[in-house]
């Protein structure tokens, strides 16, 4: 019977679309993160993970829950469905059989195809032999923006001390996913390199050693690592997507400990972490000691206090260099987890100690802000699957026992309809560090909200996604001088008439309360910036419409087009409008040594408020999400060269696989309100070389 399913359901064919760095849905999620100003562009851990799975595909016949969750392309119901299917019917015979797995639709299968395989269990000798062949990868990246900014003048106090190049060197070795180690050196543009101000060479160094499945030790992290607990209320250092058209991607899923090998200089721990487990019980303990950058002030007693943490990792000017690693942080935590067949519960605790007390600026919105030298959080989390329902949640407590709660539900109502719900209630004083939860705010706290999502596939080729999110903030926020509320609605229609064409139309409406700044003709009335004044609030809307098409013109050529429009504060005193049009062409000739991609983009917005975010294909392990505003046009070209192939095999097996990536982009933009001013040209250039397979 199962062979019949395999033979009769040969609909998938080969890979429909040529490989792209991220599926469309995840590109949108990355854009959403950039729009909410929570995207860490230097944190490419997720891209590295995908690249690793592209080379070392996950064997679906042996994959565990943790491995499937690491893909971040499957929701909890889909993961459970596959494991149950395997348990009931045995190993999969072929990838085509995925269509028979409940909750796995064609779109999901196409997204995961590049990263999964179906293999029989190999003899032990073969498995051992495979473990002897690891994957080493050396990445060298150099990038620079043009024109050279006048800030690159180290003769002035405010000038940058270093060169305009951004340099990244990373080596990583992965040994069949049970051993991983690596080192990284990074320098941002403007930072000195091997000078008196930076005698150690690069501005940022990172090293990690990560071991998995070592008997009782499920994972061991030495060096730099990331910790992910529960639903992110107390700790989540990996990428955490928020609301998007993937209405089932509402749950945080990850192993507790993960290796850290990104160039981001803030969101990780440095020390030792270990997860030990036997049967259904596991215990994770970690300890970290590192230095952070912070703005320091002086309190009433004359002591140095931390007024804010600097997360950008930039050390270009004398002042920025002074603040480099000027405070010390000790962190530690524990997580205890018990896993049942289709459920699990966990308890976590995290604590921090700083060398200086934290004392934020005295503003009304900082009334509940983090204060003192210590911070501790506790949480309980759970998840369980009941037939077509998946429940998950986390209850956390912070300083002063201020509580936070997230409760979510994923349900498959029909084979063509999925729904999701997330309730969140975070008290005004709830505080945590390195936390990323499913919230509207960038950090969890001071928020209550309800998210409802629905995804329906009424007929073949048509998909409708919609969500609604209503939320309120009980206390003040930055630029919001009172308890406020907001709501967001989205509807997206996707039409795939065949395997080559996809049309997506998306309409999103966001309405949030902000201070009523009374801007008139873009001129701000300075008299209104009186100290201690609290502004009235008003709702400001943002309506965004997008039409996106994808066309696989041939086996090697793929075209993307996008038209996007935005209306900001429509009908209000600060009304703005903007649009963006772009055309992407990607040429990936089969069995050739090069790939070429390019984009041409036109845009025009009335101002910064009507900016539009657009994800751009970049060199591997790098994100670019541009915030488009003003009036102008932009283009970029990406070129990938397989140098060994270009050499025609002259070097045989002596050389590792070598890929060269080149990227050139330029933007020509002018001030729409002041057409007399000459358009400004800016560009960026990236060169990246990857040596792999040694």
């Amino acid at each position, binding site marked *: 019977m199962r062979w019949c399913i395999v033979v009769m359901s040969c609909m998938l064919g080969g890979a429909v679309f040529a490989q792209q760095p991220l599926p469309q849905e995840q590109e949108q999620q990355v854009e959403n993160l950039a729009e909410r100003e929570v995207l860490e562009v230097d944190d490419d851990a997720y891209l590295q993970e995908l690249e690793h799975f592209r080379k070392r595909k996950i064997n679906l016949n042996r994959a565990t829950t943790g491995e499937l969750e690491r893909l971040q392309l499957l929701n909890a119901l889909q993961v459970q469905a596959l494991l149950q299917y395997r348990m009931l019917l045995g190993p999969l015979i072929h990838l085509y059989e995925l269509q028979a797995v409940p909750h796995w639709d064609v779109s999901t299968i196409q997204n995961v195809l590049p990263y999964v395989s179906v293999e029989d269990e190999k003899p032990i000798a073969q498995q051992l032999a495979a473990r002897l062949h690891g994957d080493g990868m050396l990445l060298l990246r150099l990038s620079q923006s043009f024109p050279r900014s006048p800030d690159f003048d180290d003769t002035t106090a405010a000038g940058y001390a270093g060169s305009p190049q951004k340099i990244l060197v990373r080596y990583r070795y992965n040994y069949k996913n049970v051993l991983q180690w690596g080192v990284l050196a990074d320098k941002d543009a403007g930072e000195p390199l091997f000078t008196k101000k930076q005698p150690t060479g690069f501005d940022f160094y990172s090293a990690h050693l990560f071991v998995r499945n070592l008997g009782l030790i499920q994972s061991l992290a030495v060096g730099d690592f990331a910790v992910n607990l529960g639903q992110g209320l107390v700790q989540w250092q990996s990428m955490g997507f928020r609301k998007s058209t993937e209405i089932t991607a509402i749950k945080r899923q990850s192993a507790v400990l993960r290796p850290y090998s990104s160039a981001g200089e803030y969101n990780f721990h440095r020390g030792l972490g270990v997860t030990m487990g036997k049967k259904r019980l596991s215990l994770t303990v970690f300890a970290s000691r590192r230095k952070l950058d912070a703005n320091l002030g002086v309190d009433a007693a004359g002591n140095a206090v931390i007024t804010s943490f600097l997360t950008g990792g930039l050390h270009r000017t004398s002042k920025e260099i002074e603040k480099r690693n000027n405070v010390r942080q000790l962190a530690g935590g524990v997580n205890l987890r018990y896993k049942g067949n289709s459920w699990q519960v966990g308890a976590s605790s995290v604590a921090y100690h700083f060398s200086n007390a934290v004392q934020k600026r005295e503003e009304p919105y900082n009334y509940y802000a983090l204060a003192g030298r210590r911070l501790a959080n506790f949480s309980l989390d759970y998840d369980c699957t009941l037939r077509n329902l998946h429940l998950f949640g986390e209850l956390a407590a912070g300083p002063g026992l201020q509580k936070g709660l997230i409760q979510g539900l994923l349900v498959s*109502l029909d084979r063509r*309809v999925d729904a999701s*719900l997330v309730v969140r209630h975070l008290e005004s004083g709830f505080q945590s560090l390195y936390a990323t939860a499913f919230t509207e705010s960038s950090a969890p706290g001071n928020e209550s909200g309800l998210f*409802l999502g629905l995804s329906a596939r*009424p007929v073949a080729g*048509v998909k409708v996604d919609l969500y609604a999110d209503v939320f309120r903030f009980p206390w003040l926020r930055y630029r919001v001088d009172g308890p406020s*509320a907001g*709501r967001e*609605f989205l509807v997206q229609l996707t039409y795939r008439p065949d395997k080559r064409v996809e049309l997506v139309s998306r309409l999103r409406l966001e309405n949030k309360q902000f201070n009523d700044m009374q801007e008139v003709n873009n001129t701000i009335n300075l008299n209104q910036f009186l100290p201690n004044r609290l502004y009235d609030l008003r709702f400001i809307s943002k309506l965004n419409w997008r039409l996106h098409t994808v066309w696989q013109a041939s086996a090697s050529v793929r075209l993307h087009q996008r038209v996007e429009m935005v209306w900001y504060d429509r009908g209000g005193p600060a009304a703005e409008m903007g649009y963006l049009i772009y055309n992407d062409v990607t040429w990936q000739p089969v069995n050739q040594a090069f790939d070429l991609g390019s984009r041409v983009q036109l845009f025009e917005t009335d101002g910064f408020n009507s900016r539009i975010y657009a994800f751009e294909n970049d060199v591997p392990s790098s994100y670019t999400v541009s915030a488009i505003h003003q009036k102008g046009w932009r283009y970029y070209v990406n070129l990938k060269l397989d140098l060994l192939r270009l050499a025609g095999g002259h070097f045989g097996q002596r050389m590792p696989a070598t890929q060269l990536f080149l990227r050139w982009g330029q933007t020509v933009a002018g001030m729409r309100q002041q057409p007399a001013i000459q358009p400004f040209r800016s560009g960026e250039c990236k060169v990246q070389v990857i040596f792999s397979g040694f």
Partner: protein
Amino acid sequence: MIARFVSIWPQTLAVLRFYLILLLLSPQRNAFTQVLRPSIMALNPLEDVYANAALPASVKSFTIGLRTERRYLLKGLDNYSLTAAQPLKNGGLSLSLAYFAAGAFRQSETGLAYAKKLGQVDAGLQFSYHRLSIIGYGKAGALVADAGTLWRMTRQLKLAAGIYNLSGGRLGGMREKLAYETRCALGYQASLHLLLFLEIARQESKPVAVRAGMQYQPAQAVVLYAGMETATAQPYFACSFHRTGYSLLVSVRLHQQLGMTPGLGLLYVNEQR
């Protein structure tokens, strides 16, 4: 799918023409008094009898239902409605009573609707007497006419549309008039147990409001409802329990600032014909 829509396009045009004529015949106006009905939000605008004048034609046996809501848990802001429907040979009849009180302000409406089956389309008319009284101020009433249609486009798709206060009723013949409203709801029956709908409403002098909702029957005796409307950004949830002709409905609507509005309903369906 496209072929199916092309085949029903003439019927679509006929229905649209009907509503366009009704709208054109309606006098232009500006109104600020909200019509009471459908102020108690119908959980399913394609099946709840009081949501549309054409829906009594879909009733299969005598039905009577009582619903109440306490807005924002405030004593004195109570809604009540009583609706009874009786099927006829080729249609149906319904009687509805609605009452809303807010301190000295009282609103009530008594309506009688008749709907007829016309093949794939049901059409109905409702006449209601709308009364407003303010203690110490005065009372006024107006006769209101509503029209509604329900079109069973395919086995899975239904379209319900209605115009409320078609006649442009004015309270007590004064300048103060009742708002008219147009609603259109598209329902998709994904399976026997799941109905999804999208409703667009436009009340006079107010922006367009959209409501999306679902009705899901996980078990024989239980029906779950959930949805969201954009006008007031209020999500709602409800659950009804059935047993031998009787149904108990528990609902809640959530307002961001004002809090929750719980509701209770009791329905009886005469299952013996």
